[in-house]
């Protein structure tokens, strides 16, 4: 079988803060093929960004990978040295951050910041780099690239800056683009433009994308597959249709219920998910979502749920499935 572009197995990562160990990731596993678009959704602090950053070895101090493997494009990322990681960053995998207003260095021109990546990872000459930078700005839909290259970030709007960030990320034609809430800081019309641009670029360039967001609307329009994260765990993974139409985890169901519906037939109240997010210093012993789950059973509080494959592409970690299996098994047994 051909190796997947990205394979993460049982990744465990903690932040060692003075107050104690914060268990940010508790056994995350998923894989991503070439050209696939994966959405990672979940609330703040669920480990979405940490997962994505660790693919680039960008875990911020005092975070530390304490278990599991990350294989990307033939590299074993968790064993790479800082020097090897630097060669990979920006070239094979690049990232777009949430806030374009602060993600560009205010004291260097746009041109300088785009050409910097090219200088680092390619053998292009100065004029080649300049032309490539111009080409990239055109690619991300910025008019008058020649003039823009000489301007500073503060002379651009938020949407323009995010386009520049995308241009920087795409400069070396990476295999994987990580988009960490790329539209959260933008207003709605610009959001739509940026998403459209990303879809367009994906068709043109064919790279894989990991889209991190807490906006289910964004993943629905962009992604083929969705991983739902909760408290440092992937609780459900499946195709977009499966997640939206046959959600297999109570948390996913809750998320979908809390989306406002424009075409609802009668006036419906939004249903929030009750309770508080998990304290990652002391994560629950069993299913992390159990304390907030409406259908919580005894077993949920004491033991981690095993995986249940709902289809070839769809799996969920929930005891409710097991309960059904057990019941089914039990009845089968009785009948026989």
């Amino acid at each position, binding site marked *: 079988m051909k190796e997947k572009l990205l394979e993460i197995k049982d990744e465990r990562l903690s932040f060692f803060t003075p107050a104690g160990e914060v268990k940010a990731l508790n056994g995350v596993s998923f894989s991503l093929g070439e050209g696939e678009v994966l959405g990672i959704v979940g609330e703040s602090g669920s480990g979405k960004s940490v997962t994505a950053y660790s693919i*680039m070895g*960008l875990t911020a101090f005092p975070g530390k990978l304490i278990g599991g493997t990350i294989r990307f494009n033939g590299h074993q990322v968790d064993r790479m040295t800082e020097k090897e*990681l*630097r*060669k*990979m*960053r*920006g*070239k094979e995998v*690049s*990232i777009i*951050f949430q*806030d374009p207003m*602060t*993600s*560009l*260095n*205010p*004291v*260097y021109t746009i041109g300088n910041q785009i050409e*910097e*990546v090219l200088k*680092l*990872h390619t053998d292009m000459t100065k004029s080649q780099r300049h032309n490539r930078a111009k080409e990239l700005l055109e690619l991300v839909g910025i008019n008058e690239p020649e003039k823009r290259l000489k301007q*500073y970030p*503060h002379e651009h709007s938020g949407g323009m800056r995010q386009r520049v*960030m995308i241009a*920087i990320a795409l400069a070396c034609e990476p295999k994987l683009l990580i988009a960490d809430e790329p539209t959260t800081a933008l207003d709605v019309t610009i959001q739509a433009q940026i998403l459209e641009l990303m879809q367009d670029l994906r068709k043109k360039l064919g790279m894989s994308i990991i889209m991190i967001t807490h906006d289910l609307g964004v993943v629905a329009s962009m992604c083929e597959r969705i991983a739902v994260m909760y408290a440092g765990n992937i609780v459900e993974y499946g195709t977009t249709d499966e997640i939206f139409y046959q959600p297999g985890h109570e948390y996913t169901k809750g998320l979908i219920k809390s989306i406002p519906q424009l075409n609802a037939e009668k006036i419906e109240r939004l249903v929030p998910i009750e309770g508080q997010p998990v304290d990652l210093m002391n994560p629950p012993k069993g299913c992390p979502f159990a304390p907030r789950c409406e259908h919580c059973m005894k077993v949920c509080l004491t033991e981690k749920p095993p995986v249940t494959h709902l289809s070839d592409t769809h799996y969920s970690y929930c005891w409710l499935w097991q309960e059904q299996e057990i019941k089914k098994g039990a009845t089968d047994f009785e009948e026989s």
Partner: protein
Amino acid sequence: MRSNTIVYILKRILLAIFTIWVVITITFFVMHAVPGGPFVAEKSISAEAQAALEAKYGLDKPLFQRYLTYLGDFLHGDMGVSLRQRGRTVSDIIFSKFPVSARLAGIAVVISLLLGIPLGCLSAYSRGKIWDNVIIVFTTCGIAIPSFISSVLLLYFLGSKLNLLPTVGLNSLAAYIMPVTALAIYPTAYITRLMRSSMLDVMGQDYIRTAKAKGLSNFKMIFKHALRNAILPVVTYVGPMLAGLMTGSFVVEKIFTIPGLGREFVSSIVNRDYTMVMGTTIVLATLVIAANLIVDILYKIIDPRINLK
């Protein structure tokens, strides 16, 4: 853009002239309001002789008339003669002493920048580790120890005990080492601390994360992306500090017997050498104003977001 900058500089120069006039006026009247006079202390001279001296230097005239005369002379480039150093004009004294102080200060500032900036970066980069702690301890000492202590310690150990360096004057290159060190300790320590805190702030910014995600080395990340953003507070501090050091440090010049402007400044006040007080004050004010103008222009060069208006 370019013409904007020129207009801005012209505006600032006009403002500077006004500021200097204000400084002259305030200093002139405050100085005369202080009891005593240049010839009061000399007991040996008779009342007639004193009156004659005062008449000679125009001190018998009403204060306001003297003020106008001073301003008129000043506009013609004449800062008068020293009242205590007979036969020497104020400009003559300033022009002979200022370069000595300025040279010492210049060397001290260059050294403190060359040491302070990298040390501050290193300290911020290795935050919480051993280097950071070592640097913090040394800079705290550097800020806390006054120059007369460090000067005397240097003099005692390097000059007297070990007999390595000359202790008086500035006649050889080696003679510069101790006074420059004494002058540079405080600014070096201060710049290191400023650089450290500003660097720590910048290192937490999103664009540093972007730089890291691009695959840049730590060296490039710090010296290209972080330093240029973090250096603004240092620039702000160095301008006025340079002006202050250039007019001379009384303590260091006194201890190392250096014929600089700092000693003149203090002794002119003690002696009520009115014209000398005016002269040295004007030099200091001009330097501070010029330094601030240069700082503002540097700001614009370092950070394109800053608009000079």
